[in-house]
């Protein structure tokens, strides 16, 4: 049986190089903006367009909010950990919570009974190039989002690449 990865070594992209940025947040509304803005800086440095940076900001904020509100059940002392992995042509952002809560899976849409709630995962799905949701063996949820540089606008990263070990992921949910 394939061991599920710890949050530190999961990989979404085949690119296995580049710096890693890690942020630990309390599960308090408003702190998602720290991760959101940090992701914007990283993506800007990588050469993403302003539009894609805005998409990433929204997705990261929503993932952090879900982790805090649902995964960590609003426990302000529980941590939301955000890990950003820079690769040559993509940026992956993993958002991990520590709780027993389950992340919402429903996607609101036309005819959805309560259109006022639940749009977080909808935005993440629609705005990111790849999304993987996993339950961590030590407890907690992990949402990994990947955004890819468009082939025509791909630029060499201004950051040096470095090799990084990784583990195969288990059987996470991918969308």
């Amino acid at each position: 049986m394939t061991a599920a990865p710890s949050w530190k070594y999961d990989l979404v992209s085949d690119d296995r190089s580049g710096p890693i940025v890690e942020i630990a947040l309390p599960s308090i509304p408003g702190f998602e903006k720290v991760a959101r803005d940090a992701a914007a800086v990283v993506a800007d440095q990588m050469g993403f367009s302003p539009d894609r940076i805005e998409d990433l900001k929204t997705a990261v904020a929503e993932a952090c909010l879900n982790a805090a509100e649902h995964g960590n059940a609003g426990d302000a002392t529980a941590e939301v950990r955000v890990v950003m992995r820079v690769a040559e042509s993509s940026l992956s952002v993993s958002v991990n919570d520590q709780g027993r809560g389950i992340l919402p899976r429903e996607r609101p849409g036309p005819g959805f009974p309560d259109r006022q709630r639940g749009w977080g995962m909808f935005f993440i799905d629609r705005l990111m190039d790849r999304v993987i949701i996993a339950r961590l063996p030590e407890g907690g949820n992990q949402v990994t989002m990947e955004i890819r540089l468009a082939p025509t606008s791909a630029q060499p990263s201004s950051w040096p690449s470095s090799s990084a070990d990784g583990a195969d992921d288990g059987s996470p949910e991918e969308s």
Partner: protein
Amino acid sequence: MQNKFVVEHRAEGQIGYLDFPRDVTAQTREGAYQAYFALVRARVRVVGMNFEASEYLNSAGIGLIISLVEDAVQVGRRVYGYGLSAHYRKLFGMVGLSDQMVLVSDVDEMLLQVGGGAEAG
């Protein structure tokens, strides 16, 4: 300095304005509805949602906007939104808000569309 969760309101004839703050989130809900109910009492027929100061709208904030728009539209009010960035106009479109409200660039465009006539009082 504007309290970051307070939604200001004003009525000019039959047009009511909701001036949203920098952050539109779950914490904005109470203030938004207080402001909206004030416009209801003022019997406005058009609601203009001003997002010029809004830099951050999360999913709960967008859910709040859906709620307000549905409440207004249900009783026959027309709803406009202006001052949104291109990114948030895109998100509004994704959730179907642009089917229920008219998104324009600024208040001048809103007033042009309203007609400055009957609905302006």
